[in-house]
């Protein structure tokens, strides 16, 4: 987790609220992927980013390669958003992703 630092490590959200997760990179990253690992353990692809911003429904993500960080914003949190969110740094050479330790998100009514 030293090369990719995720914050916070855990987050408790009331349904309908907004929040932001962050990854800081101490390695050179040219791409970033965000995943949600659900309670069954499956990894769901949320975003694949080169530097820039993407939005998908209530989720929005940004990647700034110069400042070496990425963010994931959750808007209007729903119960099904609960799980562990991982960011992972990648590069242009099809090498293995370097994962952070994850942010455990719990959404409550």
């Amino acid at each position, binding site marked *: 987790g030293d090369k990719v630092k995720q914050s916070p490590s855990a987050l408790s959200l009331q349904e309908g609220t907004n929040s932001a997760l962050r990854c800081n990179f101490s390695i050179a990253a040219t791409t970033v992927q965000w995943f949600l690992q659900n309670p069954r353990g*499956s990894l769901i*692809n949320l975003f694949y980013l080169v530097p820039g911003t993407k939005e998908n429904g209530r989720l929005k993500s940004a990647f700034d390669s110069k400042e070496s960080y990425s963010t994931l914003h959750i808007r209007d949190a729903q119960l099904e958003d609960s799980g562990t969110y*991982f960011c992972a740094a990648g590069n242009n050479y*099809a*090498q*293995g*992703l370097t994962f952070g330790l*994850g942010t455990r998100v719990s959404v409550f009514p």
Partner: protein
Amino acid sequence: GPKVLQIPSHQIIDMGQMVTLNCDPVSNHLYFYWYKQILGQQMEFLVNFYNGKVMEKSKLFKDQFSVERPDGSYFTLKIQPTALEDSAVYFCASSLGLGALEQYFGPGTRLTVL
């Protein structure tokens, strides 16, 4: 989205035995990966594979590990012999190719070494 399949979902074996984990990557993908996750914690890269060869491996990819994809069939991870510390969930992933490197992950195989 694209689906990666893994067989079996669970495997329990005795220490010292051989185990083969199978992955069916996305059909037109060219790059294949194995990752290891212990107790739902950090996902760690093991190895990647392209055009019949290992491209890169981490320090976790011990001499007891090997990978292959014979004739476009399953992409496999073989551990021989297994050790207690090999107990983990092993995830397979694949990506299309250079310029399209988004990795898609399978559901994982939970390996328990007794």
